[in-house]
C-alpha cells in the first residue's frame, strides 16, 4: 500500500505539486481576503474614531469567521422573474476569474528546494503574463454586467450598465499605462519585468520602475482602482443611489462570491502595482547592505513583544490566552530568522518578505482611500477616464518611447 502510494506520488509528482500549490494559494488568498475585511473595517473605524469589530474574539479577530458562517447559513432566496442560468453564472464567473488572476503572480525569486524538487513560488509563469492578466480582467466585466441584467430589477440593471461602461472605459487607460513598463522590460513576463528593475543592484530603490514611470504608475493605479470598483470609483454599487448596485438581488453565499471577488481583485492589483512599478521582491536597499537582511527580525520581534504585552492586559480571558500566543509565535519566528544557522531561511524569505510588505502597503492605501475620499459623479467619472487618464497614459507611452530612443534602453 505504502509502496504503491510512493510510486504513485513519484509518477505524478508534477501534477500533485501543482494541485497542492493551487490548494495552498487558494487557502491563503481566501484567508487573506477574510482578514482584509477585518483590516478594512478596523482601519476605517479608527480613521473615524470608532472601534470597529471588537466583540467576536480578541480585537474582533474572529469576526471574519463569524461573517463567513453568516454567509453560509443565511437564507438564499432567488427573486421572481430572474434569468436563472445567468443569475447563477454571474457570481461564479466573477469569483472564478478573480481567483484565476492570482495564479499568474510570482511570489518569490528563488524556487523552494523540498524533497529534491525545485518548487517555484507562483503557479503559472507565462510568457504573456501581463497580457493574460488583462485578458482575465477584461472578462471579469461580464460577472458584473450579467448580474445586473439577470436580476430583473431596475437598480441592479443601472448598476450593471454603469459598471460595464466604467470598466470598459478604464480598461483602455489600464492597458496603455503599463506599455511604458513593458518597453523598459522588453517582456510581458512578470518575472522578467521584476528582473529588469534589478539591472543595477547598487541602486536599490532608485532602480525601480516608479521613477521613470511615475506618470504610468499614477494612471495605472487610478485605472486599477476604477477597474476594481473601489472608492472613489465605486459607482456601480453607490448605496445612496442604487441600493447596492449590481448585487442588490444577491443574498447569502452568492453575495459572498462577489465580495470575495472584489477583495481578491484588490489583492491582484496591489500585486501588479508592486511588481510592475515597485520592484516586486527587490529590496529597496542597495544589494551590498546585507545587514538589511535582519529587517524581518527587527520588525517581527518588537511586534510580537507588543502583541504579548497587549494580550496579557486584555479584558477577556480568551484574549489573554490567544493574543500572547500569537505574540510568542511572531517573536519566535523573528528570533529564528536572526539565528546564523538559519541564514538560508532568512535569505529565502527576503524576496517574499519585501513583496508582501509592498502589497500590504497598497492594500492599506486602498483602505485609506475608502476612509477618505468621496465618490465621483458619473459624468465626472467618464470625462476623467476618457479625457484625462487615457491621453495621459498614451502620452506616457510616447515619452517613454522617445526617452528610450534617445538614451537607449536603461
Amino acid at each position, binding site marked *: 500500500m505504502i509502496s504503491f502510494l510512493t510510486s504513485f506520488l513519484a509518477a505524478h509528482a508534477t501534477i500533485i505539486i501543482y494541485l497542492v500549490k493551487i490548494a495552498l494559494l487558494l487557502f491563503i488568498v481566501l484567508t487573506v481576503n477574510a482578514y482584509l475585511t477585518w483590516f478594512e473595517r478596523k482601519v476605517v473605524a479608527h480613521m473615524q474614531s470608532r472601534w470597529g469589530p471588537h466583540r467576536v474574539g480578541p480585537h474582533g479577530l474572529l469576526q471574519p469567521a463569524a461573517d463567513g458562517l453568516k454567509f453560509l447559513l443565511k437564507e438564499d432566496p432567488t427573486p421572481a422573474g430572474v434569468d436563472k442560468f445567468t443569475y447563477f453564472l454571474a457570481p461564479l464567473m466573477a469569483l472564478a476569474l478573480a481567483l484565476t488572476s492570482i495564479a499568474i503572480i510570482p511570489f518569490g525569486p528563488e524556487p523552494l528546494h523540498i524533497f529534491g524538487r525545485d518548487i517555484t513560488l507562483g503557479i503559472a509563469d507565462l510568457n504573456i503574463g501581463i497580457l493574460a492578466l488583462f485578458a482575465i480582467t477584461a*472578462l471579469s*466585466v461580464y460577472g458584473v454586467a450579467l448580474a445586473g441584467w439577470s436580476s430583473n430589477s431596475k437598480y441592479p440593471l443601472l448598476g450593471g450598465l454603469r459598471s460595464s461602461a466604467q470598466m470598459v472605459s478604464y480598461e483602455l487607460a489600464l492597458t496603455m499605462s503599463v506599455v511604458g513598463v513593458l518597453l523598459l522590460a522588453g517582456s510581458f513576463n512578470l518575472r522578467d519585468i521584476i528582473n529588469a528593475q534589478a539591472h543595477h543592484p547598487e541602486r536599490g530603490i532608485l532602480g525601480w520602475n516608479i521613477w521613470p514611470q511615475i506618470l504610468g504608475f499614477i494612471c495605472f493605479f487610478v485605472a486599477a482602482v476604477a477597474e476594481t470598483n473601489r472608492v472613489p470609483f465605486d459607482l456601480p454599487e453607490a448605496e445612496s443611489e442604487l441600493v447596492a448596485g449590481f448585487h442588490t438581488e444577491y443574498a447569502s453565499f452568492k453575495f459572498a462570491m462577489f465580495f470575495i471577488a472584489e477583495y481578491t481583485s484588490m489583492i491582484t492589483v496591489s500585486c501588479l502595482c508592486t511588481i510592475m512599478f515597485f520592484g516586486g521582491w527587490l529590496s529597496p536597499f542597495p544589494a551590498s547592505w546585507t545587514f538589511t537582511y535582519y529587517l524581518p527580525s527587527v520588525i517581527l520581534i518588537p511586534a510580537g513583544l507588543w502583541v504579548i504585552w497587549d494580550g496579557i492586559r486584555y479584558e477577556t480571558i480568551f484574549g489573554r490566552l490567544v493574543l500572547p500566543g500569537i505574540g510568542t509565535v511572531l517573536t519566535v519566528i523573528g528570533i529564528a530568522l536572526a539565528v546564523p544557522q538559519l541564514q538560508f531561511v532568512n535569505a529565502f524569505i527576503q524576496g517574499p518578505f519585501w513583496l508582501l510588505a509592498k502589497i500590504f502597503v497598497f492594500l492599506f492605501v486602498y483602505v485609506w482611500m475608502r476612509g477618505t475620499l468621496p465618490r465621483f459623479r458619473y459624468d465626472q467619472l467618464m470625462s476623467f477616464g476618457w479625457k484625462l487618464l487615457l491621453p495621459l497614459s498614451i502620452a506616457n507611452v510616447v515619452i517613454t518611447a522617445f526617452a528610450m530612443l534617445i538614451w537607449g534602453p536603461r
Partner: protein
Amino acid sequence: MTPQLAIFFVLAAIAVIGALSLILQRHPIHSALSLIVVMIALAGLYLLMGSEFVAAVQIIVYGGAIMVLFVFVIMLLNAGVEERTNVSKLAGIAGIPLAVALLGFLAAAIARSNETAQAGFQSGGLANTKDISTMLFKDFVYPFELTSFLILVAILGAIVLAQRENS
C-alpha cells in the same frame, strides 16, 4: 491519442457546441454568452498552436471589448426573446442546404489538398510575439497605420450616430 489532440477535440467540441447554442438560444444575451464561449475556446486553440499573443488579443479585444459592447447594447435596448415569423422558416429551408453545401465543399477541398504540414508549438512564445511585432511594424506598417485611421473613422461614426438630433 496525444494530449494535444485530446485538448484539441475538447476545445473544438466546446466551440461547436457554443456556435450551435448561439443559433438555438432565443434570447440575445444567451446567444452572446454562447459566442463568448466560442471565442474563449478559440483562444484556447490558439494557445495550443503556440500563438499566445493572438490568444491574449482574442480574449482582450473580442471577449473584453467587442462582446461587452454587444451585451451592453442588448441590456440598453432591453431586447427580449426573439420572435419567430413565417419568413424565418423559409430562410431555414433555404439556409440549411446552403450551409451544408458550403460545409461539404470546404471539407472536400480540405480533404483533397495534400496539406501535410502540422500546426504545432513554436519554441518560445516571446519570439513569436517578437516576430508578429516586427512584421506588424515593418512589413505591414502602412496597413497598420490605415487601421488606426479606420478606428478613428469608426469612433467618429459611432459618435455621430449616437448623438441625438435635437441637441
